[in-house]
C-alpha cells in the first residue's frame, strides 16, 4: 500500500510540476492538492489506524484509478498520457491482486507467485517508462528553451534591423545634405574659376597697358618734338623772308614739309597702337578671321617686352625674330591667339629675367620667335635661353592653377588658358625644355 500512496504523491507532484497547474489549470491544481493531502492522510492512517488496512487499500486504489481516469479522459492532460501508460500495468495488477485476494481466496495462493512476477515486471516497466518519459520531457523542455531563445534572438534581430533602418535613413539624409552642400560648393568653385579666368585676362591687359603706354609715348614725343621744331622753323622762315633770303626760305620750307610727314607718320603709329589696344580689350567676339600671324606675333612680342620693362627697368633682353613671309593669313580668333602669344612671351621673358638674376658671366638673355609654314599647318616657336624646367614639371604646366612663380605673381592660369585656346583652334601646343638651358614652346595650327 505504501508504494501505491507514494506513487499517487509522485504522480500528483509530477502533474503539478510538469503542467504548471498552479498557473495554467487552477481548478485541477486544487483537486491535485486535495488528493495530495488525502494521500498523506492515508499514509499516516496506514501506520496509526489499527484495522484500517482495507479502507486505506481501497482508498488508494480509488485515488489512483481516479487519477488514471483523469489522465485518460481530460484533454488538458493529453501530454501527460505516457505516464498513464507507465503506471497503468502496475495499478491494474495491484487492483487485480486485491480483488482476487478478496474474492477468490482459495485460488489466490496459486496465483500469488505469478502475480508477484507480473508485479515485478510492471514495476520495471513503470520505472523504465517513467525514466524515458522524464528524459523526453527534459529534451522537450530543452527544445522549448531553445525555441524561446531563438524567438528572443529573432526579436532582438528585428529590433536591431529597425535601429539599422533608422540609422540608414539618418545617414542617407546626412549624405543627401552633404551632396547638396558639395553641389553648392562646386557651383561656387565654378563661378570662382570663371572669375579667376576673367581676372587673368584683366591681369594680362594690365601688363599690356604699361607696354602700350610706352609704345604710345615714343611716337607722341616725336609728334610734339617735330611740331615744336616746325614752330621754330616758321619763325625762322619769317625772318629769312624779311631778309629777302629766298634760298634759305625754300630750304626751311622743305624741312617743314619733311617734318610734317614725320608728324603724321608718328601720329598714325600711335593711332595704330591705340587701335591694337582697343582690339585687345574689346569683348571677345570669338569669331575667327583671317589674321596675319607674323604681325600678331610681332605686336604682342613688343607689348610683352615693354610691359615687363615697365615693371622692371633694369630688365633687358635680345629679341630675335624670324618670320616666314609665306605664312599668309590664318583663320584664328585674333584676341585669343594674341593672348596665347602674350602668355608665351611673358613666360619667356620671365625665364630669362630669372636667369639673369644669377649674374652668370657672358649670359645674354635672348627670346626668339619663329614662324614657319608647312603644307597643312603653321608653326609658331617661342624660345628662350632662360632657366628651363625639370622634366617632371612638364606634364603639369598646362594644368590650371599650376605655377612656379611666387604666390601673388602668377595665377597659374596662363598656360592652361593658352592650351584651351589652341585646342579650340584644333591645334596643339608643346614644350621642349632643358633645365638650365631654356625652353621652347611650339604652337601648331592647321592651315588649309
Amino acid at each position, binding site marked *: 500500500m505504501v508504494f501505491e500512496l507514494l506513487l499517487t504523491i509522485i504522480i500528483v507532484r509530477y502533474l503539478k510540476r510538469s503542467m504548471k497547474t498552479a498557473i495554467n489549470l487552477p481548478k485541477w491544481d486544487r483537486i491535485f492538492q486535495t488528493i495530495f493531502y488525502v494521500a498523506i492522510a492515508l499514509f499516516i492512517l496506514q501506520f496509526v489506524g489499527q484495522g484500517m488496512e482495507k479502507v486505506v487499500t481501497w482508498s488508494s486504489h480509488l485515488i489512483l484509478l481516479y487519477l488514471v481516469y483523469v489522465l485518460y479522459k481530460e484533454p488538458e492532460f493529453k501530454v501527460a498520457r505516457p505516464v498513464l501508460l507507465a503506471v497503468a500495468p502496475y495499478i491494474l495488477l495491484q487492483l487485480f491482486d486485491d480483488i482476487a485476494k478478496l474474492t477468490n481466496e482459495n485460488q489466490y495462493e496459486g496465483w500469488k507467485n505469478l502475480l508477484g512476477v507480473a508485479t515485478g515486471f510492471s514495476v520495471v516497466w513503470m520505472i523504465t517508462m517513467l525514466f524515458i518519459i522524464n528524459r523526453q520531457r527534459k529534451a522537450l523542455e530543452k527544445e522549448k528553451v531553445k525555441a524561446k531563445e531563438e524567438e528572443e534572438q529573432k526579436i532582438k534581430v528585428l529590433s536591431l534591423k529597425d535601429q539599422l533602418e533608422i540609422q540608414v535613413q539618418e545617414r542617407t539624409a546626412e549624405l543627401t545634405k552633404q551632396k547638396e552642400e558639395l553641389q553648392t560648393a562646386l557651383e561656387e568653385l565654378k563661378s570662382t574659376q570663371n572669375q579667376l579666368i576673367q581676372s587673368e585676362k584683366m591681369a594680362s591687359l594690365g601688363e599690356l597697358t604699361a607696354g602700350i603706354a*610706352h609704345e604710345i609715348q615714343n611716337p607722341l*614725343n616725336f609728334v610734339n618734338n617735330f611740331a615744336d621744331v616746325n614752330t621754330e*622753323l616758321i619763325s625762322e622762315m619769317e625772318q629769312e623772308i624779311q631778309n629777302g633770303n629766298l634760298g634759305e626760305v625754300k630750304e626751311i620750307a622743305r624741312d617743314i614739309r619733311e*617734318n610734317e610727314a614725320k608728324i603724321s607718320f608718328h601720329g598714325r603709329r600711335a593711332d595704330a597702337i591705340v587701335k591694337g589696344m582697343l582690339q585687345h580689350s574689346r569683348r571677345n567676339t570669338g569669331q575667327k578671321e583671317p589674321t596675319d600671324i607674323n604681325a600678331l606675333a610681332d605686336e604682342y612680342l613688343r607689348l610683352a617686352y615693354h610691359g615687363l620693362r615697365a615693371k622692371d*627697368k633694369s630688365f*633687358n633682353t*635680345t629679341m630675335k625674330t624670324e618670320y616666314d613671309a609665306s605664312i599668309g593669313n590664318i583663320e584664328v580668333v585674333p584676341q585669343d591667339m594674341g593672348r596665347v602669344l602674350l602668355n608665351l612671351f611673358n613666360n619667356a621673358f620671365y625665364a630669362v629675367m630669372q636667369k639673369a638674376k644669377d649674374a652668370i658671366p657672358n649670359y645674354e638673355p635672348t627670346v626668339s620667335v619663329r614662324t614657319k609654314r608647312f603644307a597643312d599647318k603653321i608653326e609658331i616657336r617661342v624660345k628662350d635661353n632662360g632657366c628651363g624646367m625639370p622634366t617632371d614639371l612638364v606634364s603639369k604646366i598646362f594644368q590650371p592653377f599650376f605655377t612656379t612663380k611666387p604666390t601673388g605673381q602668377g595665377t597659374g592660369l596662363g598656360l592652361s588658358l593658352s592650351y584651351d585656346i589652341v585646342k579650340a583652334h584644333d591645334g596643339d601646343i608643346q614644350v621642349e625644355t632643358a633645365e638650365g638651358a631654356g625652353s621652347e614652346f611650339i604652337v601648331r595650327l592647321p592651315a588649309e
Partner: protein
Amino acid sequence: MKILVVDDESDIRTLFEQRFRKEIRNNEMQFAFAYSGDEALTYLTNLSHEAVLILSDINMPGMSGLELLKRIKQRFENPPPVVMMITAYGDQENYNQAMSMGADDFLTKPIDFSLLKDKLKSLIDDKNSGS
C-alpha cells in the same frame, strides 16, 4: 667736339639735325648717331682720340643704355667721356641707378630741347675754356 646720340628710333637724327640746325651750320656742334649700344661702342673705339659727349637712350633692344654706360666707363678712362642718359622712364630708381653708374646727367623724354641746348653749350664752353 662731337656729340654722339644713341637711340634706337632713327627719327631722332632728323629731330636733332633740325633742332640744332643753327649750331650745326655754325660748326658749334657736330653730331654723330648710333642706333644701338653696339654701334655706339664701335664708333667710340674707332674715334677714341676725339673728345666725345654721349647722349644715350636707356630703353633700347639689345644692349640697354645702362649697360652701354657701364662699358663706356670701364673702357674709356682717359679722358672719361661725358655721358648723359635720356629715358622715357623718369623715375627715381632709374635716375639713381644711372647716376650711381657714373652718368653725368639725366634727362627725361620728351626731351626739353632748350634745356638740352643750354646744357650742351655750357659743357662745350667748359671744355673750350679748360683746354
